[in-house]
């Protein structure tokens, strides 16, 4: 009854009058946040439907409800007119909803072929796995799609872009009614993207409904038939793509003009070099990276997934080992290469992974904030609690950190406020250079502008800010200069004035 990309023509024709999937009045709340509020979303068979919205708009939550990862709190889900109850990913897969998640969801120890058939192994006699068929079918599948991936390779050994192709292929390996792709192009080259688009059109031509999640406007204009925009968990609009222009889409997505997001209050950067990196290389990724960052400057680093931004961030603060090169902070060389020395010289990292590398969620706000500067509050080896709390309270006031008290467990704060706690931690230590890695990841739109203002202020106070980001507006809105990375190398450095999206993307592709 449904359609199989690998064996097209074997399924029955699809009735195009009935929606493939119809979500009505979907509501979902998490502690402290309404993630989705009365959202409608209808998918027609054979149509490509783009789902757009800023980070935190509710796209991921909506997809996860479709995939059975989250249960919904309100609303109904209908597959071809029939109400269904999706309680687990298994239910969703059974209904023929295949989701390609943005985070790689593959078993890294398995071969590519086995990952493709993870959802249901073809079995031969007596229910044993038919490995021959798995290998042959996955080779055939890649062949049909046109991706160049070795089905026998161990998945974990492949670069991220190839793993992404494996994910995409997997969604097409079984019979499908709805295929959801969550930012599938984030680490693909332009060539691979155009291949993917060809495949998506072929999938749609088979009568499968495709959901395409992206925040890249040009991609959406190229591939989508219909666009639905979410903002702050609410449905904003659903229109044929022909009725949209760049401006109307952006308007729907952010609900205000984009330049308001980046209020610049700081003056021009100084001329003093705060951080100098020369010929930095690491075993895994970085290849002879050299640059300087000046006091009072925001130096933005852009790159596609796997370009090496996070690696660079971790290497220059002394967290990850390096194989060659020198790092100089405020005239002093970072040696030995460790975070202890880094913090002493005045360079610190605001990690992209707050939960596992930044915060101690169970501990109260004040302990998280004072962690790097306990020495300053110590008397005879004991921490002077009163002094510590006064210092933290000062930052809570200055940054308007919303917390009921200093003793609140930090995990109960919103993402934006957690980020401010982390920034306080470093400022309390007296930094000269702060490296921020994806400063607004997982932070909702309203809080984003506060973080932007905070970064602006940091630079205004004379810090050199090195900002790693994958968000173009953030990059263009905040940076004084823009550095672009590709495959561990630095491919361009330009001033904000000469930078255009096109120039940056070209350099990012390498």
């Amino acid at each position, binding site marked *: 009854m449904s359609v199989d990309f690998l064996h097209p023509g074997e399924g029955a024709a699809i009735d195009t009058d009935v929606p493939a999937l119809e979500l009505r009045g979907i509501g979902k709340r998490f502690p402290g946040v309404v993630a989705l509020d009365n959202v409608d979303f209808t998918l027609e068979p054979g149509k490509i439907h783009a789902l757009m919205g800023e980070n935190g708009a509710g796209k991921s939550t909506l997809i996860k409800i479709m995939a059975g990862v989250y249960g919904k709190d309100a609303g109904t889900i209908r597959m071809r007119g029939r109400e269904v109850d999706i309680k687990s990913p298994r239910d969703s897969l059974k209904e023929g909803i295949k989701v390609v998640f943005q985070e790689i969801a593959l078993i890294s120890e398995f071969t590519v072929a086995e990952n493709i058939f993870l959802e249901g192994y073809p079995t031969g006699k007596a229910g044993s796995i038919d490995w021959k068929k798995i290998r042959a079918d996955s080779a055939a599948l890649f062949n049909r799609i046109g991706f160049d991936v070795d089905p026998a390779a161990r998945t974990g050994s492949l*670069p991220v872009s190839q793993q992404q192709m494996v994910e995409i292929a997997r969604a097409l390996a079984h019979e499908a009614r709805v295929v959801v792709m969550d930012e599938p192009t984030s680490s693909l080259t332009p060539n691979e993207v155009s291949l993917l688009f060809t495949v998506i059109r072929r999938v749609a031509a088979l009568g499968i409904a495709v959901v395409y999640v992206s925040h890249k406007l040009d991609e959406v204009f190229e591939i989508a038939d219909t666009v639905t925009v979410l903002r702050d968990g609410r449905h904003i609009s659903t229109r044929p793509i022909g009725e949209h222009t760049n401006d109307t889409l952006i308007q729907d997505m952010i609900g205000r003009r984009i330049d308001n997001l980046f209020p610049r209050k700081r003056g021009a950067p100084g001329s003093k070099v705060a951080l100098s990196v020369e010929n930095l290389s690491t075993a895994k990724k970085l290849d002879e990276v050299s640059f300087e960052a000046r006091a009072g400057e925001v130096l933005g680093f852009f790159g596609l997934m796997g370009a090496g931004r996070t690696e660079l961030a971790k290497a220059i603060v002394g967290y990850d080992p390096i194989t060659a090169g020198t790092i100089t902070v405020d005239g002093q060389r970072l040696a030995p290469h460790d975070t202890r020395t880094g913090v002493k010289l005045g360079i610190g990292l605001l990690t992209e992974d707050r939960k596992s590398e930044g915060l101690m969620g169970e501990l109260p706000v004040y302990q998280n904030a004072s962690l790097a500067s306990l020495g300053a509050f110590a008397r005879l080896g004991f921490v002077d609690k009163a002094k510590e709390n006064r210092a933290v309270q000062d930052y809570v006031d200055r940054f308007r950190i919303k917390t009921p008290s200093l003793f609140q467990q930090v995990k109960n704060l919103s993402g934006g406020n957690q980020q401010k706690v982390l920034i306080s931690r470093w400022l309390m230590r007296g930094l000269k250079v702060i490296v921020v890695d994806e400063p607004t990841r997982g932070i909702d739109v309203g809080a984003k502008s506060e973080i932007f203002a905070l970064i602006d202020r940091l630079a205004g106070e004379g810090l050199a800010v090195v900002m790693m980001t994958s968000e173009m507006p953030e990059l263009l809105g905040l940076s004084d200069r823009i550095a672009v990375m590709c495959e561990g190398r630095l491919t361009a450095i330009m001033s904000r004035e000469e930078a255009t999206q096109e120039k940056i993307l070209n350099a990012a592709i390498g």
Partner: protein
Amino acid sequence: MSLASTASAKAQPSMLARLFARQELALLVCLVLVLVFFSATVENFLSVRNMTNVLGQASLALTAGIGCAIVFISGEVDISIGSLLATIALPLIIIMNDTNSLLLGVSAALLFGLIIGAVNGYLTAYAGINSLIVTLGTMFIMRGGVYLYTGQRAISDDAALDSFIALSDGRLFNIIPYSAVIAIVLLAAFGYMMQHRPFGRQIYAVGGNQEVARLAGYDVRRVKFICFIISSLLATVAGIILAARVGSAQHTAGLNFEFQVVAATVLGGVSLAGGIGSLTGMALGVLILQFLSNGLRGLGLPTEWQLVITGIIIIAAVAVDEAKRRRANGG
């Protein structure tokens, strides 16, 4: 696609590297080295009699090791198996003494093992308690229960059924101990399951990445639950063989057995983190430790030293393994 193809070329290690990366091959080399060393230094080490004896001794750890490895691969641990060995001997011996039926005794033992496995599995998979804690708890509870019930006295096998005694000293074709035959058959069956049955691959997937397994539609909790039942049932089989060997239900039976099995399993390259390792590796790990202990005894080294050496070997093996894995992932 030039980028993709160069990347895949880089990601493909040479044939030789891939062969050496195979845990099992490295372990086999180790086993051969152990055999060669002791055959040169210990008299009669390589004799059929000694070899089959060692195999018979290894059969308990081989049998229980299957379950231990499967639970490890699913991403959990089960250290209750040693106490289970002592516990299941009670229903086994008591019912055989009462009924003179091997079948009834063994069924009772297996039923008991099934219940313990279900308890471990339920508390871990469904109640969400850490499996180390759960099985540590059931380990103490069972050992304490056996002490209480027996008053620390052995309950001897008065029925002395021929078929039961054959489990301890019977040999297939007068060569291979039956206990070893049982272990080998179980190894082959479960080894096949792990590599070629969907359920076996599900266990690897669950241990490899629980979230991914759930997204692929697997019932993660059910998979783990069943792994604990398998582990307890296999430990029960080992316990039955042990009871036949000592001819009684002993309150001290299987003391520290779980750690010998865990040691061999880890030596065999089965990762505590889940998703990695094979039953073949586990079996090689058991054999290496068993032959080592047999050979060292042949050299006249006291047991205390065997413990020290075993400890060093395990840490060294896991360290080497870890270094290798880090390099492999480093590309």
